[in-house]
């Protein structure tokens, strides 16, 4: 009776060990997969662009991910192509004109950089 009980306990312990090992293996695989996905979603060149003076949210947006690109073709996803411009985007497009530098600012930039003015 004692032998049978010992055998049952040993079997239960072995099964528990196998289950634990399997769980650990699955966790490692998942972590590896997550890392792979995360690496693949990083841009080819990772130098941060446009983070100086940006808010935290904007900093994250300006440093991460391909954003709307099909991973297989590199072309914009249908969902990206399907996005339509609303009032906010139209305002941003109009606002691009406000960023054109004034003549005197351009001349200072040209002079500082050793460029040529027309």
């Amino acid at each position, binding site marked *: 009776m004692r032998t049978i009980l010992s055998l049952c306990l040993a079997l239960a312990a072995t099964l528990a060990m196998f289950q634990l090992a399997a769980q650990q293996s699955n966790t490692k695989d998942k972590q590896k997969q997550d890392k792979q996905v995360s690496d693949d979603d990083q841009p*080819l060149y990772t130098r941060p662009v446009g983070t100086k003076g940006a808010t935290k949210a904007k900093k994250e947006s300006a440093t991460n991910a391909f954003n709307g*690109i099909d991973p297989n073709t*590199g*072309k*914009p996803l249908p969902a990206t*192509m399907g996005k339509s*411009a609303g009032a906010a985007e139209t305002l941003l497009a109009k606002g691009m004109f406000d960023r054109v530098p004034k003549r005197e600012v351009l001349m200072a930039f040209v002079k500082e950089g050793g460029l*040529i003015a027309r």
Partner: protein
Amino acid sequence: MKLKHVFCIAVIAGGSAWIAQAQLPGLGGLKNKIDNTKNKAKPATDRAEKAHEAFASWSPEEEEGIGEASAAKMIAMFGLVESDSLNAYVNLVGTAVAQFAPRQIPYRFGVLDTGMIGAFATPGGFIFVTRGAVAGIKNEAELAGVFGHEIIHASERHLESQLKTTKASTWAKEEGKAVKGPALLEANRAKAESLITDLFNMKLSRDKEDGADERGSMLAVQAGYAPDGLMNFLITLQASGSSPKATKAFGQLFSTHPPLDERITKLRAWVEKQPKKGVTNEQRFLDGTQ
């Protein structure tokens, strides 16, 4: 004998008069036929006029309206990197190059918030470079070369002419109609949708791309930059290989432009003929884009 002759002449004259009379209604019919043909030809003339309108360049107002709608669509797709210092910097570099553009329109520059590598020109002088491209560019001369390429596309209306060729039949009908107010905005938006779809799927002709590489680099040289800026950036892209990540980053560029090695070879031949001078302003570029 004389009487016979007189009789014959009378018969012939009478016959001729009868024949002539019979033919006159026919001559009237001929006139009608000419008139009908003229009337039938009128719609064809109208169509030709509409086609001419379709192939004629957009007016400055049309170009600005369609360009603005296209730029808004691009911003809706990817978003703009909203950093005041970055936007000020790219507009300074772009405007320094655009001073020498063959056609002077208000060029303006923005950075699209995507890791994809690319640069785009929509009508009306809206020029975009992607965050992914800026991250791979090493100095101001390279950025100036990229902007020069896009400025040439915008200045020489490459996209407009290509689209008008491929969409002549449908756009001719639309452009034959005079639209104003909200209808005009809607028409511009519809054209922008079509234009952006083609921008991401259509190859411009090899001549236009080669021309934009060479003349765009020339604009950068005229502004005082080193002539090999665009070429060096293309070499950086080529060196990045063909990993899945590179395919993802370059997919758009490869599907709409000639192969990199061909572009580099042609640019190298041009660069070797240029005087070895011009600035690169590497540190200013790194400060301006961080």
